């Protein structure tokens, strides 16, 4: 297959369908009101979840939380453009994407609560375990997509990573493998301008991260990461192309990490408050709300109803995280192999003996 390089290049500016004031840009049609309302509802829930998780860190119920405050539109759209049989490969920052796809937030937060490494069954919702080693999950996404292709299944895989992760070798290997094998993967980069303290300029001097597709024969597109309408359109289009057999697609969303990398990070050491403040007016939630209100598709009653639903979800999260799970030492040994080795049996017995002597005391 020969590919015209020009056809692989992203647009000069990120695609924006609704401007920060909530007005349509006219660049292309905004998705219909039902789709936009569903996205709005998910955004309200997403923001509430980020806020709730942050509060739970302060209360000591979560060990750490990498917030996606400001990036919710990316995560909501990434989940909502997928069909039931598609797959999502999230990172540590993509709690909201996993939840929007239908994983119980309490199960997603098990990792950060510290009870276990991954708290949900990836096959039930087709959401892979959240990946921390950067970019490594992108190759797994290609593998899942290729297996589906070989079995003749119409699965598309949505593989998420950050701007910093595009510097890792695995990012490049994943794009190349996917292109060579014609695998239906959408690589979705949330460029939030920072990798912890390191600004994008230190990761790449490419015209954009979406331009990185050209070298692999993968078409790239850029989208405003705070415009849920544009995200739904661009990611939806990429999924459709991948499903139609056009091979992997690369989408870069330009967004911003409004909070520190995690609660353990001090962002004042490397960026100015006014830089953060400039992004407030581009908030994805207020933008979607302004658009829907402007069309008369959303009123106060519905806003209140969505907020109430988000509050119920937050209460469910609080209940779940405030419940202490008694750590079961058998868990240490039961999942290392299909069957415990003789050595693991000995080690489990040692722990059991220690505990019984503790009880006897």
């Amino acid at each position: 297959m020969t590919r015209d390089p020009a056809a692989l290049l992203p647009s000069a500016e990120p695609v924006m369908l609704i401007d920060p004031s909530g007005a349509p840009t006219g660049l292309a049609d905004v998705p219909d009101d039902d789709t936009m309302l569903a996205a709005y509802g998910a955004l309200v829930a997403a923001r509430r979840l980020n806020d709730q998780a942050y509060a739970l860190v302060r209360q000591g119920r979560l060990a750490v939380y990498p917030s996606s405050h400001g990036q919710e539109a990316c995560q909501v759209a990434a989940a909502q453009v997928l069909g039931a049989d598609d797959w999502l490969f999230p990172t540590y920052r993509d709690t909201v994407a996993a939840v929007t796809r239908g994983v119980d937030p309490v199960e997603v937060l098990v990792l950060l609560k510290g009870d276990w490494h991954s708290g949900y069954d990836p096959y039930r919702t087709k959401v892979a375990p959240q990946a921390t080693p950067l970019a490594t999950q992108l190759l797994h996404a290609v593998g899942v997509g290729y297996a589906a292709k070989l079995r003749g299944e119409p699965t598309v895989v949505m593989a998420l990573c950050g701007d910093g992760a595009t510097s890792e070798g695995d990012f490049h290997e994943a794009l190349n493998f996917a292109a060579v094998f014609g695998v239906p993967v959408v690589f979705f980069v949330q460029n939030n301008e920072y990798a912890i303290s390191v600004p994008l300029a230190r990761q790449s001097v490419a015209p954009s991260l979406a331009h990185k597709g050209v070298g692999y024969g993968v078409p790239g597109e850029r989208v405003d990461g705070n415009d849920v309408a544009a995200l739904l359109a661009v990611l939806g289009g990429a999924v459709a192309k991948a499903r139609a057999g056009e091979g992997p697609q690369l989408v870069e969303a330009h967004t911003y990490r409004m909070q520190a990398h995690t609660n353990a990070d001090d962002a004042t050491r490397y960026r100015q408050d006014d830089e953060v403040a400039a992004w407030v007016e581009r908030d994805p939630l207020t933008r979607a709300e302004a658009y829907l209100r402007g069309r008369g598709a959303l009123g106060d009653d519905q806003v209140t109803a969505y907020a109430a639903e988000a509050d119920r979800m937050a209460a469910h999260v609080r209940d779940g995280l405030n419940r202490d799970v008694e750590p079961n030492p058998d868990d240490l040994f039961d999942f290392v192999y299909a069957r415990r080795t003789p050595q693991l049996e000995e080690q489990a017995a040692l722990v059991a003996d220690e505990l019984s002597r503790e009880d006897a005391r």
Partner: protein
Amino acid sequence: MTHEKLTMAQALNRALRDAMAEDPSVLMFGEDVGPLGGVFRITDGLTAEFGEERCFDTPLAESGIVGLAVGMAMNGMRPVVEMQFDAFAYPAFEQVVSHVAKLRNRTRGAVTVPMVIRVPYAGGIGGVEHHCDSSESYYAHTPGLHVLAPANAADAYGLLREAIASPDPVVFLEPKKLYWSKEEVDLAAPVPGIGKAAVVREGTDATLIAYGPSVPTALEAAEVAAQDGRSLQVVDVRSIVPFDDATVCEAVRSTGRAVVVAEAVGFASVSSEIVARVTERCFHSLAAPIRRVTGFDIPFPPPKLEHFQLPGVDRILDAVDDLQWEDS
């Protein structure tokens, strides 16, 4: 002689600063080590003091960081690189094992790559997955690398200075859980060098052999044992490679009993190597087989379960109790 109260993190920072001030070929780079000063603040202030060319952030790629360091070391620099966490060093494994460790040997000594790979390592900080690995055995198993693990601020300073000056590449393992413990140190006072273990507590009944994060635990166990009337000696290995057979064996011969304490998985590990070496050399001085208290042979557990995995005082004292005292 100026004694000051320093954390291990501050001592490491001071070692980097002093080395960079003395030798313009010493460079520091990695992820978030520039303006942020590293996620553990070990490189705090270095960019401000020495400029962006001497202490800088790289693109986010560990293989790239170590590979770049190889080339720089080949061309007259002394790079010190930081892997942000133990488990995030694995993308660099190919560079470390195939090149950092082998260049001297491949070229019959013509090409050497003096560099230090700093790795915040091990558990005990309630970290989530991939943030708590004890990876020393991978490195120790790779000929061509020196592997050091300090357990106190004075050693952190002294060993890091030596590592930077060393003609050979050094993997420098910094126990994360000890970063913030404060001690009186005299940075000008020399410490035993690379290849030297140290007896850090005298004792006559049995010897605890530990390194890195396990040394304070071993010392605590010895303290508790003393209250029970048992005198435990503690040896801090400090230098995993090269290993100080002489000091460790002399210590074990003096007591005739030993327990090796290490946080890492026990199977095929530095702790098993220590048992093998000491047994080969001290068999006739031993009153009991050497015992080990190590991490179980499992992936490092999540925060709520990590206390089961970490060698603790009780588990160490249980092992000491098992050293066939009834026979003596």
